[in-house]
């Protein structure tokens, strides 16, 4: 088996409790996950189960309490520079125009301005924002900002792409358009993707593999499903495929119990 693009080994994350007590909150416990180069993996789980924690560990933004992260076989220390991260919230710098937001990563890497701008324009066109180079984020709609964020992440040509519910704030139509766009871009480049979502339909429609996480605390993977639907896919059409329905039922059987557990815990809290 070739070396995983991103390997999480026995990750445990315990956060110190706010009141300074001894008992911390263990969000993730003994979680292991491997993503092969070129593989599109989705992680689904009930809300608040520590999906984002796992992603932040993979990004190197959060050091795990125990366990190890390996990127293409090398142990990760500090920020994962081979990864691009598309955040759930607003991550564009509001004082930069769309173009200069997209080129930020190149600028940080010391790419000459002219070359960065040329690439930036190209990427803006690719995500459907040609002609919007000089807009500031507040002058763009939510969908446009997500496109700009996508271009900002992908322009660096990362080998691992991490996405944290990137489209959860979008309306259904915009969302399906974006999902298809991401799939097209991914098909062209075939990078490893770790995609976090709470939407099972989205996970199945886009991925090669879906990993189900248990309800928190002490989240860990409890099921893995290979999605053997043919590609290229259209996220709207694939939902009517009988195999999609089968997979959905199989995964939902596992997920439902966790969702109920998570819900019960939140109600108690």
């Amino acid at each position, binding site marked *: 088996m070739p070396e995983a693009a991103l390997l999480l080994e026995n990750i445990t994350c315990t956060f110190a409790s706010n009141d300074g007590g001894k008992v911390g909150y263990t969000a993730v416990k003994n979680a292991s996950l491997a993503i092969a180069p070129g593989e599109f993996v989705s992680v689904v789980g009930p809300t608040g189960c520590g999906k984002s924690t796992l992603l932040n560990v993979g990004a190197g*933004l959060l050091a795990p309490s125990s366990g190890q992260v390996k990127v293409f076989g090398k142990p990760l220390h500090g920020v994962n520079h081979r990864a691009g991260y598309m955040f759930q919230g607003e991550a564009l*710098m509001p004082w930069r125009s769309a173009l200069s937001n997209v080129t930020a990563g190149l600028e940080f890497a010391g790419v000459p301005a002219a070359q960065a701008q040329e690439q930036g324009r190209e990427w803006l066109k690719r995500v459907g924002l040609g002609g919007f180079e000089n807009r500031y984020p*507040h002058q763009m709609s939510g969908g446009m900002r997500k496109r700009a964020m996508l271009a900002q992440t992908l322009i660096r040509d990362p080998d691992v792409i991490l996405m944290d519910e990137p489209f959860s704030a979008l309306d259904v139509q915009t969302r399906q358009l974006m999902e298809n766009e991401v799939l097209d871009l991914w098909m062209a480049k075939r990078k490893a993707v770790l995609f976090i979502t709470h939407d099972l339909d989205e996970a199945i429609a886009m991925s090669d593999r879906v990993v189900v996480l248990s309800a928190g605390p002490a989240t860990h993977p409890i099921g893995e499903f290979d999605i053997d639907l043919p590609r290229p896919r259209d996220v709207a059409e694939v939902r009517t495929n009988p195999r999609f329905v089968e997979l959905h039922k199989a995964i939902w059987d596992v997920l439902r119990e966790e969702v109920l557990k998570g819900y019960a815990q939140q109600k108690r809290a």
Partner: protein
Amino acid sequence: MRFWQVLLLVIVLVAWHFASQDRNFAFFFGQPVGVAKVIWAWFVTNADIYRHLGVTLTETVLAFVIGTVAGLAFGLWLGLSRGASALLDPYITAANSMPRVILAPIFGMWFGLGIWSKVALAVTLVFFIVFFNVYQGVREVSTTLLDNARMLGANRKQLLRHVYIPSATSWVFSSLHTSVGLAFVGAVVGEYLGSASGVGYLILQAEGTLDVNTVFAGIVVLTLFALLLDGLVTVVEDRLLSWKPRAGETEKI
């Protein structure tokens, strides 16, 4: 609206004029015509205010620049360094609560009666305003923005330059209107407490001879220049913060 605003001013001036026909009233409140005459003499016939105005404005600008730069630097430093801010926190609170005008005589001793004692006093006023705003601004930079910049490969220096400083700048500007006014106040109060030139000195002199008209003329001139400085800040602000959404601005998609 402009018309009504001007009308209000005219009504007040006319009322003042007629009320000041009374000698007693005029003694305490001056006369608008007299005030205008003093201003005219200052700027045109005698042309002797320019030196004083120049001194006051120099002090203001120096204090404003020094205070802002120091506040920005210090605010960034403390905002980014948890240890330093924990150590210095009580002293900063104490220094800020101290009525700083009281420092004027000490600054007089340290820096003499020239412009630098006034600059020092005004700097103490400006510094804290800018400092607290930057400190707050740095602390409240969105973590998503920071994480995103880090994932895009920004090192510490680039984070400072591309995330912390632009983010703090918007906070600084919200404080600049206040601080430019305070720089002016510091300069004038400093002059008032001991000097040989400046508009504050002119006012002090006039008070010594119970020349109310000149006092009012000084106040009017100071007010006009304070408005002017404020206007300049607005111009610079509009230029530098063009990325900020304005209230009520429709978003053209």
